[in-house]
Structures are given as structure tokens and as C-alpha cells.
């Protein structure tokens, strides 16, 4: 098979990165912060409670022993217990992830569709009104702080078109009588719409700019000139000569933007009180719940590494020139 060693190399890089991320996680939370317990804020946190927690977490051992314990726990997918609630962290992550994923997916899909569309048109019609308009709206959304755009949408849009601006479910729905599946679904969609739109708009700006510059590069290539000389229709040139070749940098950059999507979703969920992973992060920061925060950070890092690997492999699949 072509370039099996390339695949092996990329996978090895990903695995090494995972290991480094795990170690960084340890260093950040245990070594540098010194003691996760001292910063703990909760009602029942007496000195004795803190001492017990310290022993529980193995914080009285040496750093090296702690590191080994930490790795051993991770190998069993034991992410520790949340400090204030003393429940296993793993269980606390499930529900927020289930809430976050559809919202993030909806926003990303919106961004990819509109970003590609506007980016392609802007590059194709370079220098025209369509290009300028597309470019400046994209730049505008790209420049907006995510949380502020969310606030603006709540203030100017939510009330105007009658959409809920916080939570994930109308509290009274299904309380007195069983709600139909359709009612539950549409209620969920309504709550998801504005957060997804906020995320989507900011990402849209990002993607439109990426697609535009990638398209500008490919449209300047000689094979586009050749295609024109052959008398192909403009749209055919854009589609099969321009976009097809621009797809490669776009795939990579979109995968790389995942770190941003995740970060953006944190403030978006906070603004809309959407009970997903982002809101959980904010709550964990608020309570200084370090085991939970550590688990979230690890999860986010792993997902970014995964998508980077995916981008590398896709790049390899679509570009026969990649050899290293």
C-alpha cells in the first residue's frame, strides 16, 4: 500500500502527542499549582475535610509516585472524583457531552456551508462588490468576541422572533402531561438554535476567509489558465480545478480550527446557560473543581489530536504528492 509508513508516522505522532498532553495535564494541575485542594471553594471545606481530600488524591506522596498513580488511574479510565460532589468525574461528563455535540455540530455545519459558499464566490469574483461584501461581513464576524455576539443575539434577536435565550428545555414541558416526541424535539431545536447560530456565525467568518484565500491561491495556478484556454465553463473551472485543489488546505485548517470551536462553545454555552461541556467547564472553574477541569481538558485535547490526525490522513488520501 502506498505510504503505509506515512500513516504509521502520523499515528505515532498522535500517540506521542496524547502522552505529552497527559503529562502536561499532570504538570499543570499537580506540579505547578502545588495543591489543588487549597484553592477549593465550597461550603463544607473544613481543614480536616481538605486533609482527607489530600490523602484521597494522593497529594501527600512524592511527585513521581503521584505521576505513576495518575498514569495507572488513567489506564483504567479512572478520571478521579469531582471534589465538591465526590461523584466520579466520568459520570458527570456524559450528559453535558450529549447536550453539546448536536449544538456544536449544527453550528459547524452552518459555518462550513456558508463559509465555503461565500469564500468561493468571493475568490471567483475577486475585487467586485460580492467579494468586498463577503470579505467584510466575514471579517466582521471573525472579529467579534463570541460571548458578545451571543449577548447581542439574545438582546436583539431572541425576543424579536420569540426564541428562548437560555437553558436546553422549557421547564414546564412534559411536567403535567406527556409531551409528544415532536414537541420535545422542536423544543430542543429552539433552545439549540441561538447558541448554534452564535458559534456558526463566528466560525463562518473564519471559514469564509480561509476558503477565500485558499481559492485565490489555486485560481492563480497555471492549470486554471490552461482550463480556461481549453474553453471550460467558469463554474466547471471553479468546481473541479479550483475548489477541488483548494479543498486540501481547507480540510487542514478546518480541523485545526476545532480547538477554537471547543473554546468558542465554552463562552457560548455560558451566555445561553446551555448545559453542555462548556457550561460544565465554567462551573468547574467557579468551584475550583480541579479533577473535573483536568478531565475536561484531557478530553478536549484528545479530541483535537484526533481531528488533527484525521486531517492528516485525509490530506494523505486526497493528495498523492504527500510523501513525508
Amino acid at each position, binding site marked *: 500500500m502506498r505510504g503505509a509508513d506515512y500513516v504509521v508516522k502520523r499515528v505515532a505522532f498522535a500517540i506521542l502527542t496524547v502522552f505529552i498532553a497527559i503529562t502536561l495535564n499532570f504538570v499543570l494541575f499537580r506540579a505547578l499549582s502545588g495543591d489543588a485542594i487549597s484553592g477549593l471553594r465550597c461550603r463544607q471545606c473544613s481543614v480536616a475535610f481538605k486533609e482527607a481530600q489530600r490523602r484521597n488524591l494522593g497529594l501527600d506522596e512524592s511527585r513521581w509516585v503521584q505521576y505513576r498513580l495518575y498514569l495507572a488511574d488513567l489506564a483504567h479510565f479512572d478520571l478521579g472524583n469531582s471534589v465538591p460532589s465526590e461523584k466520579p468525574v466520568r459520570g458527570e461528563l456524559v450528559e453535558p457531552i450529549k447536550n453539546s455535540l448536536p449544538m456544536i455540530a449544527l453550528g459547524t455545519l452552518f459555518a462550513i456551508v456558508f463559509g465555503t459558499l461565500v469564500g468561493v464566490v468571493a475568490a471567483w469574483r475577486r475585487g467586485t462588490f460580492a467579494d468586498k461584501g463577503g470579505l467584510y461581513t466575514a*471579517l466582521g464576524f471573525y*472579529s467579534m*468576541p463570541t460571548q*458578545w455576539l451571543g449577548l447581542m443575539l439574545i438582546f436583539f434577536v431572541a425576543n424579536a422572533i420569540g426564541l428562548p435565550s437560555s437553558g436546553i428545555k422549557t421547564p414546564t414541558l412534559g411536567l403535567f402531561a406527556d409531551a409528544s416526541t415532536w414537541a420535545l424535539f422542536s423544543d430542543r431545536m429552539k433552545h439549540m438554535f441561538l447558541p448554534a447560530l452564535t458559534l456558526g456565525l463566528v466560525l463562518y467568518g473564519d471559514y469564509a476567509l480561509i476558503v477565500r484565500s485558499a481559492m485565490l491561491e489555486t*485560481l492563480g495556478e497555471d492549470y486554471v489558465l490552461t482550463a480556461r484556454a481549453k474553453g471550460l465553463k467558469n463554474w466547471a473551472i471553479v468546481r473541479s480545478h479550483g475548489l477541488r485543489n483548494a479543498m486540501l488546505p481547507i480540510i487542514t485548517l478546518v480541523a485545526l480550527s476545532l480547538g477554537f470551536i471547543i473554546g468558542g462553545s465554552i463562552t457560548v454555552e*455560558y451566555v445561553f446557560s446551555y448545559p453542555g461541556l462548556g457550561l460544565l467547564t*465554567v462551573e468547574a472553574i467557579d468551584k475550583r473543581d480541579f479533577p473535573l477541569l483536568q478531565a475536561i481538558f484531557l478530553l478536549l485535547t484528545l479530541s483535537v*489530536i484526533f481531528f488533527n490526525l484525521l486531517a492528516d490522513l485525509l490530506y494523505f488520501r486526497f493528495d498523492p504528492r504527500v510523501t513525508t
Partner: protein
Amino acid sequence: MSLIEPLQAADEDGLAHGIAKTSRPGFVRSTVFGSPAAMAGLGIIVFFVVVAIFAPWLEPYDPTAKTGPVYAPPSGAHWLGTDDGGGDMLSLLIAGSRVSLGVGFLAALVAMLIGGTVGVLSGYFGGTTDTVLMRFTDYMLVIPDIPLMIIAAALFGRNLKNIVIIIGIIYWTSTARLIRAQVKSVRERVYVKRAQALGAGNRRLVVKHVLPQVAPLLIANTVLMIALAIFAETFITFLGLGDPSTISWGRLIENAFTGEATINNAWWAIVPPGVCVTIVILACTMVGQSVEDGLNPRLRVGHLSVKRFRVRTPAGPEASK
């Protein structure tokens, strides 16, 4: 004669690989002044910098004092109304520009210093240095920046110095990669080789021959980085991890949220800080982007331009009219 030829060949070589063009003295200035968008951006940046410098003299009221009723709408006394503590919004905005721009510039400077140093070392020395530094950079690139920033801010305490350092340390990676590629191409140019053959030391080569060629790219990147850093500051502050004793635009946005300005119908507390952030980021992006585009000659060629059927008559463009 033989001295000139290889020089031209080297320049063409740089272009052929699609690597940024070498710069002449005054390149940045002429690019920025040549583009209306970049000029507008520069004007905006200068305006806000002036406001930030003279903030204490420009504020109509003391930004920390209660100078009116809570959430008073804009009026003659308070041009942009008051916030949830009765503070004058205009004064708060002016005071906020100081911290926001300060954090932006300083954090970008930190990122530029780290990224530039790593990039130059890596590209100039190559070999093992390059491998080690770039491996490290690659790993750092994969760690999601925003969650890392939040966690670092949560762990290291809430003051401006820490926030500047955290943002700078997290954003240096892309600068390093960019600068490395450029240094690598400059290093192979014949005049650098020749200077080396004439006995120039590493330090002289870097300072006299490599850095001037890399400078425009570094400047463009730093300007883009200022935008990122200002963005990051609003982000950190919004999550309640900002310096509690300072006023920044990020803090004003946070205030609008926690003070429930939406429920109080106080658009004047929500809109202005975000508009300021957006405008400054937009301005930085336009300036940085125009220099970067100017450095990339491939972007200037478009084989699918809109004027599709322009007929070029032998007599010149005038004859076709």
C-alpha cells in the same frame, strides 16, 4: 558581472517556491500606505492608542465612581448612559481601552519574542536544533489554545501580568513556524552564503542579513497577534478569570452579562464595548493581512478574473473605446 547573476537567480528561487518575497527597505510602509483598507485600519489603531494614552484626561467622569442612576439611558450628562453600578459608560470605555490595548500589545510582544527567537534559531541553525524545536512547536500547536488558556488563568491567579504571559506563551507557535520557513529560505540565498564566506559570524548574519528580510512578516504576524490577544483577554475576563481590580473592554462585556443588561433593556451597556473590541480587531486584521498579502506574490495572480472578455487590441487599450 558574475557577482550579479547569482543574486538574481537566488531571488527567483525564492519566488518559485511560493515563499514570501524578500523585502526592500520601506516595504511595510509602502504596502500599508498603498492599501485603503490597511490605511483605515492603521488610522483606527492610532486613534485608539491615542485614546488609551490620554485616557485619564479624556474621561468625563471617574470610571470607578457612581456618577448617576443605575442603567440610565444615554443623555447629555452621560453620552453612553450608565452601567449596573451607575458608572459612566463612556468613561469606562475610555479607561478600558488602556487595559485591553495594553494586554494586546504586550502579549503580542511576548509571543513575537518567543516565536521569533524559536523560528530564527530553528530556521538558521537547522539540523538537530531545528528538529527538536519544531517537534516541540508541533506538539504545542495541537494542544487546544483556549481551554489551556482558561486552565492556566484559573491556576495562576488573576492579575494582568499573568494574563499577558499566559496569552503570549500560548500564541507563539504559529509565529515560530512562519518565521522558520522564511528564515530557512533567506539563509539559502547567495548573499548570505557569500557574507558567511567573507567571515561574518552567526550574530552578524542574523542581525544584518536574515532579520531585515524576516522583519515585515514578523511585523504582520505581530499585528495579527495583537488582535488575537485582545480577543483572548475578553475571553478570559468573561469567564471571571480577569484581574478583578482593572477595567477592560472584556470586563465591560462581562459586566453587561452578569449585571443582566439584557433584562434591563440597557443596549448602551452591551453594544459599545463589543463594538470597540470588534473594530480594533478588524483594524489589526486589515493591517496585518495587507502586509502578509503583499508578501505573497501568488495571491496577486488571478486567472479567473471577472473581466472575462477583455479584448486586447493591438493598438492599445485606448483604441477599443
